[in-house]
Structures are given as structure tokens and as C-alpha cells.
């Protein structure tokens, strides 16, 4: 049975189509300005579509909506379909991708090197991420999950700084190695006798049953714990979880600003999304091993990620690297929230996972904003070395204000979005894993330390320290331009909205997660 709504297909492929247009227009040697604005407008259009998907998602009906379904691959041993759809879990993440895509495109206004190529890759990246969040077929999910590597490789290695080739290759190899495990995991799931579909969720309206129902209690082709681990490794690399986080600081530090925004903002979220959809979604009633059995050990890993990430963050002297490591710490909270699946009551499980999902959304906007501000500051000072900076507040108060907002949201100041998600994670994981949650709470304390200390060293003081940027350059520093405010506000508004009125997103996530928990 096939159904074709179309809106998601358009949302996913609009950026790709725009990329194709730019590519085909290359022989005409269009002005860079035209290409730039064309690309920006296409991301805005994608954002509008993603907002429509988010707002039009019927919360009273729930389930999977906006389905596009066509049979795609039907080989003897593997059958897959082109199946797009959003449920409560993916709808906010689609919106997040739309937001971050627009912010990233705006933040790329100053790219002058090989402009059309740059935007081709950036748009393809957005399309790939959008595809990950909307595809409900396991193989299609994997296709998008892997495809995202190519644009990232290109973007980091050509437009990056520092050691871009090295960082890009490291990113690729880590991701592909993780993806390789998932690839095998997909086969292992599909080739289980009782499973005859790759659909990740059941869609009763179309008469499609999903893997979670079919795999429940079935005799698996390999131990359930092994298949679980295959998926987990792929997502743990991507999230990233200690000790697989090694690629992240390099990739972030050397990537151009907009790519860091995308990487921190949405790419890491693909992993959290995958963990909820697959690791939790599939393995609740599997024979011999369920996700509940793994929650304990994962909570330990989460606590280590949070605290280790935070301690390493404090030691950083490069602003971008600092924020990159803080992502390791904050993504640890996501994992911690997920470990609430080991709880006894449905309310705790739901709350923890909901907190984790919200943490993904808020971290996307907060860290996106932080990277954006670092990028803006770096464009002016040409250094990110913290000891070389100081007194920036006097020269660039607007950048300073928004840096503050990002920083405070990141350390969990109430009324900003980071607080809501972290409190949800703690409240629900503490009853289940008091030690892990308790230790992780230090992550918040340390976050206050590294955020405030960095802001103090870079923005305060009367002038840059001796040996830092020369006084003459300092005097010539300028503040953000009016157009810079567009990406800044696009990212700041959700921080406030969720901080003050979290229901906007929490309720949607809740519908999705209720559907996944059985």
C-alpha cells in the first residue's frame, strides 16, 4: 500500500534541489552574491516547510503523520521502502534542522572561497540531516545517516582551518566505522525470522507493522545484546559518548563556523534520535536482553561523559575547542536522561527520555548560538586563543550579550532552555541511578566554571593582555553587523521560548516518546 503526502519529500529534497540548481548554474559564472542569497533563501523556504510540519502535526491524533510511502528495494534477502513520516519525536527535530540550516546559511555570508561549491555541500548536508529525521525505514535512515559524511568531509577539508584534512578524515573514519556496525545491526534485525519489515515504527493506518512489534519475543539471529551493541556503537560515536568522542574536538575546531553550527546543532542529535528510535524503540521486549538491562552501565558511561567532558573543557584555551568539549559533557546528559528507561514507573521512563529529547533540542540552539558567536568574534580578532583575548565587551557588546545568553543557557540558568531540559533529566534519572545522576550534577557546577571563566577572560577586563592581540587592532574591532542578527535571533528566540514555556516542544516530544515506549 502506498501513500504520498509529499510535504516531507519536498522538505527533505528542497535543499538538495537548490544545491543541484547552483551546480547546474556554475557554467554561467553567477556572482557570488546571487548564489549566496539563493542558497540562503532556499534554507529559509526549508525552514518555513519544517515549521509547517511542526505546527501542523496534529497533537490530538498523534502517531505518524505526513507519510510518503513507496516500495523501493525488494531483493531476496532485504526489502526496503521509501518511507518518510514524522511523529512527536521527529517533528521538533525537523524544526530544529530547519532553524539551524537557516542560521548556518546566514552565518556563511562571509565565505568567499569557492562560494557555489560551499553552498552546494551545505545544502546537501541539510537535506541529509532532514532525511535522517524523517525516514522511518531503517535502510533509508542509514542511507541519509551515511550520506551526511560526504558534505561534512568536503566542508571541513576545504573551508576549514588548522589541520582540516586530518580532522575531516578523522571525522569520516569514526563515523563510517560506527556506521559499519549499524549496517550489520540492520541486517541482523531484518533477517530475524519474525521480522519482515524495516519500518522503524508501526503505522496502523496503513496496515504497516514495525520492527518493534515484530522483534518482541522473537528468536533473534544473533544475541539481542550484540545487535543492541551494534546500533549503540554507531550512535555513541556520533553523540559522542566517552571514550568515542575523540573526533569531535578536532572536527569542531577546524570546521568553518557554519559547519560547527550544523555539527553541534543537528548532527549530534541524529545519534540521540537514533538511540531513542532504535536502541530504546526496538529493544524493549527482545528475547534474552532488553534495553533496561543496559541502562545501568550506560548511566555510568553517561556520568563519565558528563564529568570528564566538563573537566577537559575547563582546561581548553581555544574558545571553539572549549565549546566542542562542552558538547561532550552536554550530550552526556542526553545519555543520562535515556538511562531512565531502567526506571520502574512509566512516568519516570517517559520523563527521562523526554528530558533527553528536549536536551537535544535545546543544546542544538544553545551550542549553535555559542559557535556562531565564537565565529563572529574570531572573524574580528583572528584568534581564538583565550589568553590572547580580553576586554572584548567594550568593543563588541552585542556579540557579548548573545555570548552571555548562550553561556548562561548552557550552564542551566532558569528561564533559559538549558535549565528545563537538564532539570527534567536529573529529576527522572536520579530515582533510578542516584549515583550516576548525583555525580553528573557536578557537570552543571563545572559548566558554570568553564562558561563564566571563559567569558570573564575574553570579554572582561579593560584591554587585551600583553602578548595578546595588539592594542591597535583591538581599537579597530567592530561589533556585529545588522544582518548577523538574523541567525543570532533565529537561534536565541527558541532558547527563550522553551525556557519560559517548555510545553511548546515538550508536549510534542511526549506524544512521540509515548508511542515508542511500550
Amino acid at each position, binding site marked *: 500500500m502506498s501513500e504520498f503526502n509529499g510535504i516531507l519529500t519536498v522538505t527533505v529534497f528542497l535543499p538538495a534541489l537548490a544545491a543541484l540548481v547552483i551546480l547546474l548554474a556554475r557554467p554561467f559564472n553567477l556572482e557570488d552574491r546571487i548564489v549566496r542569497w539563493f542558497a540562503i533563501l532556499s534554507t529559509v523556504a526549508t525552514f518555513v516547510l519544517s515549521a509547517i510540519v511542526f505546527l501542523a502535526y496534529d497533537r490530538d491524533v498523534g502517531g505518524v503523520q505526513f507519510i510518503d510511502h513507496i516500495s523501493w*528495494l525488494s*531483493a*531476496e534477502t532485504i526489502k526496503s521502502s521509501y518511507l518518510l513520516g514524522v511523529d512527536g519525536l521527529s517533528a521538533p527535530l525537523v524544526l530544529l534542522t530547519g532553524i539551524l540550516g537557516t542560521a548556518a546559511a546566514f552565518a556563511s555570508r562571509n565565505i568567499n572561497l569557492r562560494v557555489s561549491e560551499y553552498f552546494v555541500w551545505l545544502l546537501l548536508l541539510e537535506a541529509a540531516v532532514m532525511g535522517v529525521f524523517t525516514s522511518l525505514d531503517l535502510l533509508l535512515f542509514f542511507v541519509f545517516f551515511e550520506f551526511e559524511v*560526504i558534505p561534512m*568531509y568536503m566542508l571541513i577539508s576545504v573551508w576549514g582551518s588548522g589541520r582540516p584534512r586530518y580532522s575531516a578524515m578523522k571525522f569520516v573514519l569514526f563515523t563510517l566505522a560506527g556506521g559499519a556496525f549499524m*549496517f550489520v545491526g540492520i*541486517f541482523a534485525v531484518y533477517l530475524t525470522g519474525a521480522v519482515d519489515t524495516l519500518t522503524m515504527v508501526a503505522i496502523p493506518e496503513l496496515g504497516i507493522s514495525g520492527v518493534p512489534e515484530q522483534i518482541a519475543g522473537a528468536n533473534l539471529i*544473533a544475541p539481542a545484546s550484540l545487535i543492541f551493541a551494534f546500533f549503540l556503537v554507531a550512535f555513541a560515536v556520533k553523540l559522542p559518548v566517552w571514550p568515542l568522542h575523540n573526533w569531535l574536538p578536532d572536527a569542531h575546531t577546524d570546521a568553518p563556523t557554519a559547519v560547527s553550527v550544523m555539527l553541534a546543532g543537528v548532527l549530534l542529535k541524529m545519534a540521540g534520535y537514533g538511540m531513542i528510535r532504535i536502541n530504546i524503540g526496538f529493544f524493549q521486549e527482545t528475547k534474552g536482553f532488553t534495553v533496561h538491562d543496559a541502562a545501568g552501565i550506560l548511566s555510568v558511561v553517561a556520568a563519565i561523559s558528563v564529568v570528564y567532558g566538563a573537566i577537559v573543557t575547563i582546561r581548553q584555551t581555544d574558545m571553539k575547542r572549549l565549546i566542542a568539549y562542552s558538547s561532550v559533557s552536554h550530550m552526556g546528559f542526553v545519555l543520562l536522561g535515556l538511562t531512565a528507561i531502567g526506571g520502574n514507573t512509566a512516568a519516570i521512563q517517559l520523563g527521562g527520555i523526554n528530558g533527553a529529547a528536549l536536551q537535544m533540542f535545546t543544546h542544538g540552539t544553545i551550542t549553535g548560538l555559542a559557535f556562531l558567536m565564537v565565529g563572529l568574534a574570531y572573524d574580528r580578532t583572528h584568534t581564538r586563543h583565550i589568553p590572547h583575548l580580553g576586554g572584548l565587551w567594550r568593543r563588541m557588546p552585542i556579540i557579548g550579550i548573545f555570548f552571555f545568553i548562550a553561556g548562561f543557557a548552557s550552564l542551566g540558568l532558569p528561564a533559559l532552555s538549558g535549565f528545563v531540559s537538564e532539570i527534567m533529566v536529573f529529576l527522572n534519572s536520579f530515582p533510578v541511578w542516584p549515583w550516576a545522576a548525583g555525580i553528573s550534577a557536578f557537570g552543571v557546577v563545572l559548566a558554570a566554571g568553564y562558561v563564566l571563566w571563559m567569558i570573564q577572560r575574553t570579554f572582561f577586563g579593560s584591554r587585551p593582555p600583553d602578548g595578546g592581540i595588539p592594542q591597535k587592532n583591538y581599537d579597530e574591532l567592530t561589533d556585529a553587523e545588522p544582518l548577523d542578527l538574523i541567525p543570532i535571533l533565529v537561534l536565541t528566540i527558541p532558547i527563550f521560548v522553551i525556557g519560559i514555556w517548555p510545553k511548546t516542544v515538550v508536549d510534542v516530544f511526549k506524544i512521540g516518546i509515548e508511542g515508542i515506549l511500550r
Partner: protein
Amino acid sequence: MNAQDYWALSPVIAMAGLAIVLLSADALLAERMFGGRRFGSKRALSWVAFIGLLAPALLALNLWFGWVGEQTSDPVVYGTFTADRFALFFQFLIIGATAAVILGSVPYLNQFRDSLGEFFTLILTAAAGMMLLVGASELITIYVALETTALPAIALAALRRDGFSIEAGAKFLILSALSTALLLFGLVFLYGYTGATRIDEIVARMATLPFEAGVPFGSLAVMLAVLLIVAGFGFKMAIAPWHMWVPDVYQGAPTPVAAFLSVASKASAFAVLMRILYAMADFDPVANDWQILFALIATASMTVGNLLALTQSNMKRLLAYSTIAQAGYIMVGFAAVGAASSSGTATAGPQSIMYYLAGYTFTNLAVFLGFTAIIHRTGDDTIAGLSGLVKRSPVLAILMSIGLLSLLGMPPTVGFMTKAVIFSTAVDQGLIWLAVVAVVNTVIAAYYYLRIVGLILFGDTDNTDRTRPSTGEMTAVAIGVAGSLVLGVVPWLVLQLIDDAITIV
């Protein structure tokens, strides 16, 4: 011989006839018969060859659709040849590969102005041999077809007549002879056990013979035969541990010849091996044993190919190792050959292998022919020579990058889809470890493929002359890339075809 026999053989006959036409045309043109300048008119040969390929292609299409003539998919010519859809599928691949190689190598062949006729005659003869091979259903025919394939290929490898090329030819000749000897030895065991050379008779006899059957080793003789046959074809398929000749021959042979060998020669060997194995699939003493044999060969081939490719600095050698690794991936599918899949049918193995080969044919031709277009202009066959290609020839650079990404198995290209299908057959057979090894191998391969893609797209170059490939070269590469994208995005197109073509089970 009756009408049916001729119809069944018609594509092969047309191909062989075309080879003779080319040989005669070359002789005529050499005498300046038409008063043209010697080489100027010889260039027409490539167009005669290219357009002439329409004849075998149309005749094969006729057999597939059954337009005219008396046709049958049963064995014909006293049971020696079967023009079933399985054979036709591979004949299409071979004709297509031949056409692409001819189309994509016209400028390259300028350097062979004295032996242009030989080149076409040899390549068409080899193609005729392969087309015979994929339909051969009798042991002696298989042997004869294989030799018809091998001898022209050896001459082609030595065509450049420089040190590397002669070495390639000599090495190819000796190892080819050795492999054929092994194969013959295997066929002899099969004959000794069953007393028949026709595959259908062998199947029938196996079903009734006692396991001892009054021959040395009893039914073990069949196992031994399988081993020797696999070893014999192993050379053709370029799988480890019979891969030693591949890098040397690919490096020494003219690049279009390497392209031809890497695709057509491999595909035909895979086809005939599948046909032989399916004949024995119901023979209990061996059927379950070859799974582990193929799994080990696949592991060795993938690992050796990928690890050695990492250290190469010569592009042709790297591509050679890459084809060894690719053959290893195909062998993963062989582990499912003859065994029933979880859905109860025994067609999973051939389906995955044929899909892989179809995708591989397009992709590998794109990469090899793209490289052919570059190498004969720069004369530099190192990987470093590709540096900054995008500045010299942007379209070709992008096409080659897509081809390389497809070889690596990156979605949404066919390389990904075929790997997904072929690895799933391994998991289906319970060989999860094999799928893990295969997937880990693709990660290793990512390193060297991406390094080349990186060099092509971002490398520095002093050479700012724009390399302008000819229309023919560009078309051949573009068709290859288009094929690898289309087959990857809409796999059902070819899977439908393949389902019709699995007639050997």
C-alpha cells in the same frame, strides 16, 4: 545443428563475426585502398567496432524478448550451450562493457596506430569467448570458451610492447596456463565421478550415484573438483589467494584493456562458476561445505585487496587491488549460493551477485575509463598525478569522484545498495562474522578511496592546462556514473530484470 542452435548462438556468432570484419577492414585500410591517409581512415575502425556491436546486442535482445526465430532456453548444440536469460544477462553486461571500453578509449588508442586493428579484433574475440562462456553448459565447452577468452586477453595485455607490458603479457600467459590446468584437473574429477561432461547429465548422475561410485576419493572427488574449479576461476575473478598477477597486469596492460579485464572477464567467470555450483547444489556431500570455503576466500580477498591498496602510489595498481577487494565482496554473495535463504528460495545468492556485478560494471568502467582519459594526456599514472584534477577538468573530476564513492559504497550510489544486498545474504546464511568483516573492510577502503577523491577535488596542481576529454570518453564515463546513480536510487529497475534472469536455480 538445427535452427534453434543457430539462434541460440547468434549473439556469439555475431560478435565473432564482427571480430573478423574488423580484422579484414584493418587489412584493407592498411593497403591505402581508398587513397585515404593511412591513420586517418583507420580511425573509422573504432566506429565500425562500436556500431557493429549493435548486431550482437540486438540478437541478444531478440533472444530475451523472443521476437523472431526458433528459441529455447534449454541446452542446445548437443547440450553444450544454453541461451537462457541468465546467460543473456551476462552477455548484455559483456557487450555493454565492450562498447564502453571502445567508446572511451578512442583517443587513447592513437598511440597504437599500427596495431589498431589487432586491438579491436582481440578485444572482440575475447568478448565472443566470454559470451560463449556464460552460456556454456558442458565442461569441454567451458574450457574452450575460457581459452578463447584468455589468449586474446594475453595478447592485449602485451600490446604496448614496452617492458611493463611484455612482463604483464608473460605473467598473464603463464598464470593463465596454470589456472586453466587447475581448472581442467577439477573438470576431470567431475567427469571421473559422473562419467558425463554435460552439466545436466552430471546433475542427473549425481542424484543416483552411490557416494563411493567406484572412483578414487568417492564423493570427495566432487569436493576436490569444486576446490580446483574455484581455484581455476579464481585467477579470472582476481580473488585472493590467486590475485598476484592482477596488479602487474593492470599496470602493464593498456588502461582500457585493464578496464575490460576488470569487468567483463570477471563477470563471465562469476557467471560460469555460479552455473557449475548450482548444478551441484543438491549434492549433499559438498553442498554445505563450500559456504565456509567461499566465506574464507571472501575474507582473504577483501582484506588483502584493501590493505594492500592502502600503500599504493600507482593509480593502476591501486585500482587493481581495489578490484581484488571488490571481487571479495562478490564472494560474500557466493557463500549464499546454492543454499536456501530464510524466505525459502535459493535465489538470494545469484540475485545479490548479479545485482552487484551490474552495479560494479557501471561504476568500475566509469572510474577506469575516466582514468584512461587522463593518463594518456598526462602520461602520469601515479595517484599524485590526479592532484587538483578538478581545476583541469571539472566535469570529469566530479564524475570520477562519484565513481570512486560508489566503489567505496557510499549512499545513494549503487555501490551502497549492492553492498547492502550482498552483505544481507551473508547474514541471512548466519554468517554474521562475514558481514562484520566485510563492513569493516569497507571502512578500510574508505581511507584510500576518499584520499583520491580528496586529491582530485582539493589537491594542488602546477599543471593548469585544461584537460579536455573527447566526447566519446566523456560519454562513456557519464554513462557509467549515471548507471551507478540510477541503479542505486531505483534498484527495482534492475532487480526486476535479475529476477527474470535467475534461470539456473
